[in-house]
């Protein structure tokens, strides 16, 4: 009995991974997309993102401290991530007060009413985004055109997005290369497919997410839009690059809390999102369907978790 040792159950080592490391990893993966939007939308992108992040963190802190009366956990990075994702899903000329309302809805209703991180059913950033889209349809759908390093915020020049033009049956002038690089109108973070794919590659290498959800969404969307849009390969490909498809598939749908837990479940979830997105884009009232598709499949996630179990070792068929 010489020394007072610590006794704990095995295992005695840990991978060193943590929730905040996962969250900051996703944030790092979002940097390329942020840089592109800074370049394309100038000061507006910076103002919107900063406001959104600060508002989300502040609301999380206030709600945890004064309403739920628990130890605030703003350092885990989840509120920052929600803030960034919310900002990436709105136009860069959105007035500050609208962003703050969006942040309040995202954190307050999307996350904290369910009990905070880990308990929410819907992706908080998307709850905020959809709330803003329904409440402020005009502001949320006047998209600024890319204007490299512009210093205009609220008075940026606006135009319809390629996706909107497609919806109205007008011809799309933008080139596929513009869509890849981000030289098109749209929400703050969704414009450059290449930057988002770089983030995807980073997250795959760091093993923050697996390939299942993004790949199944993109493949399903491609195949389905190829079928319903008259067997047009380039059109189907553009469907992947336009709007929130890449951002949604890579960063929004893969949110840990609101996506299924098994690889098989993830693929079912991804197929659902891909199908719903194209259905909404093709037949619905809105030109963009990614947010709604993800929210609908978020609602289906508990069901998928219940019925799709991991593949067990030595499973005995009954």
């Amino acid at each position, binding site marked *: 009995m010489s020394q007072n040792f610590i006794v704990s159950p095995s295992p005695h080592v840990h991978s060193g991974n943590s929730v905040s490391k996962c969250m900051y990893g996703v944030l790092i993966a979002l940097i390329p997309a942020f840089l592109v939007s800074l370049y394309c939308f100038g000061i507006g992108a910076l103002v919107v993102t900063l406001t959104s992040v600060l508002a989300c963190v502040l609301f999380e802190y206030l709600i945890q401290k004064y309403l739920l009366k628990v130890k605030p956990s703003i350092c885990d990075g989840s509120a920052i991530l929600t803030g960034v994702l919310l900002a990436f899903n709105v136009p860069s000329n959105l007035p500050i007060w609208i962003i703050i309302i969006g942040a309040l809805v995202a954190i307050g209703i999307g996350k904290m009413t369910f009990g905070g991180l880990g308990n929410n059913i819907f992706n908080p950033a998307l709850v905020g985004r959809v709330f803003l889209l329904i409440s402020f349809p005009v502001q949320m759908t006047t998209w600024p055109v890319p204007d490299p390093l512009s210093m205009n915020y609220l008075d940026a020049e606006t135009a319809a997005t390629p996706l909107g033009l497609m919806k109205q049956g007008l011809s799309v002038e933008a080139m596929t290369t513009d869509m890849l690089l981000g030289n098109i109108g749209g929400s703050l973070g969704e414009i450059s497919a290449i930057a988002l794919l770089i983030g995807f590659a980073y997250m795959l290498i760091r093993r923050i997410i697996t390939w299942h959800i993004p790949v199944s969404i993109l493949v399903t969307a491609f195949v389905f839009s190829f079928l319903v849009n008259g067997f047009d390969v380039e059109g189907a490909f553009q469907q992947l690059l336009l709007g929130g498809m890449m951002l949604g598939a890579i960063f929004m749908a893969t949110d840990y809390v609101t996506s299924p837990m098994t690889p098989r479940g993830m693929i079912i979830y991804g197929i659902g999102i891909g199908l719903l997105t194209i259905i909404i884009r093709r037949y619905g009232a809105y030109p963009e369907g990614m947010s709604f598709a993800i929210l609908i499949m978020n609602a289906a996630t508990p069901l998928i978790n219940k019925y799709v179990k991991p593949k*067990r070792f030595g499973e005995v068929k009954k």
Partner: protein
Amino acid sequence: MLKTFRIGGVHPPENKLSAGQAIKTAELPKQAVIMLSQHIGAPAQAVVAKGDKVKVGTLLAQAGGFVSANIHSSVSGTVAKIDTAVDVAGFQRPAIYIDVEGDEWEESIDRSETLVKECNLDSKAIVERIKEAGIVGLGGATFPAHVKLTPPPGATATILIINAVECEPYLTADHQLMMEKGAEILVGTELLRKAINVERAVIGIENNKPDAIAHMKELAAAYPTIEICPLKVKYPQGGEKQLIDAVIRRQVPSGGLPIATGAVVQNVGTAFAVYEAVQKNKPLFERIVTVTGKSLAHPSNLKVRVGTPLCQLIDACGGLPEDTEKVISGGPMMGKAVVSTDTPTTKGCSGVLIIRDLESRRKEMTACIRCAKCIAACPMGLAPNTLMNATDHKDWERVEKEHVMDCIECGSCSFTCPAHRPLLDYVRMGKARVGAIIRSRNAK
């Protein structure tokens, strides 16, 4: 592509600090404390009394049933008392205390170093020798070896797999044993192969030990029946079920015994002990123990007599460092943290690991974010997060339905959890509770 098991797995940092350290013989203790329960199954029954003179290799206690093992003296001297001693888990357990006097061995033991290859015994006689020698699985599970070598009626063995994976971080005892006693291990493998009447034996070694693979391949060239199988490094490959899957691509059915796949798995240390028992008539009373730790002065591989207190082993490797907060018997993934270093070495003790204060404490747990990393890591394809929640809610029906009994307690889930949730703690509790429920149901 190197072979490995197909579901889950993690990669803990290997930290094989004592790799390549030649096996040193630890000093004899002044008093050896030999626990009567050093194996899974019934405790052994003491056959000596206070005051009896014993020699090295004298039978101290007889197996207390079929699933039990004989225990022999590791030292020579006088039985001081038969009392209780604190085991690794802090409980008082029956033990025999022997005051050491000199080092006199039983005459029947062949102490020479010469390699004896020939053996004319038949399978039954070999198993009988193994049983007499009190050999248990030396990988850490301490399951009596003769039980595994006696397949239940209806089951037939088709292959022998020798577990030289040593997937636990830090531990190097098996590695070093292969480097120094490779030839003996191969003879032991042949004996085991004969004991279960199979044509083929495979020695599975992870490829983080390239020298051992090369060495064993060279030696095994003389044995057409023995194959060396390099395996991709992945924890918990040393688990019996995982190793069978890795080597012969067959999965032990859920709830079934490994023999259902036709494979019998024995540890490489066990193979060496079998060689000594059958060819040298030496019962199991000493083993190789890795004494290691980042703060330890001289991480080593020691040949230790069973019953030597752990503190003596640590002293032999440079003494217990000041900043030690945890001492583990076994490896960091599945080993047990000890209450005191006064506890004696047992047959199942594969390592003594010293952990500094920096790494000894767990981080505070936070809410589950359903990242499913535990599900991806689980080598049995379970959902540890679901099991933990169901156990916490005492929903035993659900726990059972989620196949808690399949859990091998490897710790991959807790290791990988970014929220630092004690998944395995709860799963283990759920497993114990559901096991009790199943037993009482079957008893009805």
